[in-house]
């Protein structure tokens, strides 16, 4: 589970006429603003190092202009880096020629787009089957695979429709089915749900989580929405001005924000709904003390509900049936107070 599927190492992306020459400035510590002022080049990404673990959802979060869409496009080389390497499943994709890169895109990765990017002149079935037909699979096999995944995302019966006849949420389901049809390990989702309205977005997030439970793809998910990031992420990477501000387990970031920027970010969210009992509990392997049992994966919101507002209550926290700790409601209250930045950078978990 913890084996890396994609490694991004020392990645730099600079936009401008003389980009390669600018790398040394960036390496010397120049940031986005200074480079634009001093050299007229846009620093897209600076010294990015991310290990994307197999079977996990890695969420890359940042505001617009933070370089997150540029970053995800490095994984399938829709954008070429200025410096650094991207290793997908053991291959350095910078060393691939055009044909082998196409082969890699066809077999190892798929992508879901913010604006759906479906072919307007082809039916839902043909759209969903696109990765197969691009590979050159036969019509019958393509249609069969496409039909299977359309059913899986809840679009059975819409095969003969055209994309413009579907709502945005339905279109993105087609986009998702198309990505699944390619049957590749890595799934890149570029703000896949940002164009959807909140209710549909939430149901699409559930769909992704449900699919993930069965398929355990390696997903890279881009978003600017912290709630979405916290809901989906196994590993959260926060980008700002082309640099990684902090990455790690979302719960950890929430409780230990590395700098004021992230502090600001996390101050608005409903902590009770995101934080889990196991992140807040005291790790005691105490003997049975008669407390009520609570699962470690429950949210604090659930714990508060169970306590009926009694601030002096404690729970016995269990995970997979064994006692792992004790949760005091006073700790819960403390955890709900937004944390100040610890001043540490790049705390990896």
């Amino acid at each position, binding site marked *: 589970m913890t084996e890396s599927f994609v490694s991004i190492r020392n990645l730099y992306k600079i936009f401008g006429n003389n980009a390669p020459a600018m790398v040394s400035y960036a390496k010397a510590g120049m940031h986005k603003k200074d480079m634009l002022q001093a050299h007229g080049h846009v620093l897209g990404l600076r010294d990015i190092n991310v290990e994307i673990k197999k079977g996990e959802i890695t969420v890359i979060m940042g505001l617009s202009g933070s370089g997150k869409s540029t970053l995800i496009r490095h994984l399938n080389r*829709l954008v070429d880096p200025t410096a650094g390497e991207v290793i997908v499943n053991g291959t350095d994709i910078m060393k691939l020629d055009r044909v082998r890169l196409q082969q890699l895109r066809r077999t190892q990765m798929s992508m879901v787009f913010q604006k759906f990017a479906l*072919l307007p002149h082809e039916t839902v079935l043909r759209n969903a089957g696109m990765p197969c037909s*691009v590979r050159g699979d036969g019509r019958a096999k393509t249609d069969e695979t496409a039909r299977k995944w359309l059913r899986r995302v809840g679009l059975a019966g819409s095969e003969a429709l055209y994309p413009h006849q579907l709502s945005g949420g339905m279109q993105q389901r087609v986009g998702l089915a198309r990505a699944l049809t390619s049957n590749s390990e890595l799934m890149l989702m570029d703000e896949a749900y940002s164009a959807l309205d909140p209710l549909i977005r939430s149901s699409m997030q559930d769909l992704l989580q449900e699919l993930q439970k069965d398929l355990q793809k390696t997903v890279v998910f881009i978003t600017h929405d912290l709630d979405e990031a916290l809901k989906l992420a196994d590993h959260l990477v926060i980008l700002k001005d082309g640099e990684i501000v902090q990455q790690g387990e979302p719960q950890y970031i929430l409780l230990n924000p590395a700098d004021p920027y992230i502090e600001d970010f996390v101050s608005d969210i409903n902590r009770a709904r995101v934080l889990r009992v196991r992140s807040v509990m005291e790790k005691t392997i105490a003997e049975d003390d008669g407390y009520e049992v609570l699962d470690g994966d429950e949210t604090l919101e659930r714990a508060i509900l169970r306590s009926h507002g009694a601030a002096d209550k404690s729970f016995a926290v269990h995970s997979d049936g064994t006692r792992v700790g004790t949760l005091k409601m006073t700790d819960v209250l403390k955890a709900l107070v937004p944390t100040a930045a610890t001043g540490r950078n790049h705390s990896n978990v």
Partner: protein
Amino acid sequence: MAPYEKAFEALGLWSWCDAGATGGPMSMDDLLAKAGAAGSDNAESFPFPSLDVLHKACGAIPRTRDMTAGLERLFLDVKDPVKVVLDPVTQPLSWALRNAIDLMQSLPWWAAILILVAIAHFAGRRIGVTVFVLMAFLGLAFIDHFGYAMQTLAIIMVCTFICVLFGVPIGIAMSRSNRLERWLTPFLDLLQTLPTFVYLIPLIFLFSVTEPKLYGIAIILYAIVPSIRLTNLGIRLVDKDVLEAGEAFGMTSWQKLYRVQLPLALPNIMAGINQTIMLSLSMVVIASLVSAPGLGTLVLRGINKLELGVGLVAGLGIVLLAIVLDRVSRAALQRVNKMHQSRT
């Protein structure tokens, strides 16, 4: 003394001028000038230094007339080698035009109308348009203009086909290379702005007036421009996201072309074809000057012999044909557009 003589003297070019001087009056203008020179001397002591004025001062400088004559000589000189290449290449065009005209005329009237109405129906799928096409052709046949209309139509069909055959690939190539676009654009501008009669001048020299390819080339050169331009534009306007999706799933550039770019550019390409058809029609009338058969010859007869009625009726027949072609191609365009409707 002619103006600017002093200038040449000052520059020390006097001997060069004298050497090139040609004795005796050369043109009517010169004669007139000589005759009038005595009376109106120095009416304009500082004329614009044009070639003619300078020639008067210095015989070595050619007159404007010599320049146009030179251009003509140049053209006549290169004509033969150009013809060696151009003649066989364009021969199929003559052949296609001749056969198309023959075919359209050899069809019995009912078969021709049936085929045309069927084409209109399948292209447009709009019952109103189909009925209009039927009425238009019946009307033309009723006033004995059907044969002429068929000739015109045959020429337009062949020329439009060739325009699409070459225009779309050229447009595709143009959309892929900014440099090609930069180089081709002025040339396309030239083709579109050149007065239509001017097309005919060099072509008359190159080909015999009895050959259909003479007017075929004129029509194609004039009408191919929108096909090229709108194909280029259409492909450049293709939604970048969809193209990126194709790329992300590993499409080759060939797959991108026929699965993404061409289908998404189709509305624009169709608009270009519609324009091409309309331009062919306008050119085919002018091409009747160089023996293009069809309704245009009647218009020409109306002008030459002042047969007002003949010219007007033929002119209205052309308008009718134009409306038919426009409505049918536009109905086809709308059908394509509908499929591409809002993808937001």
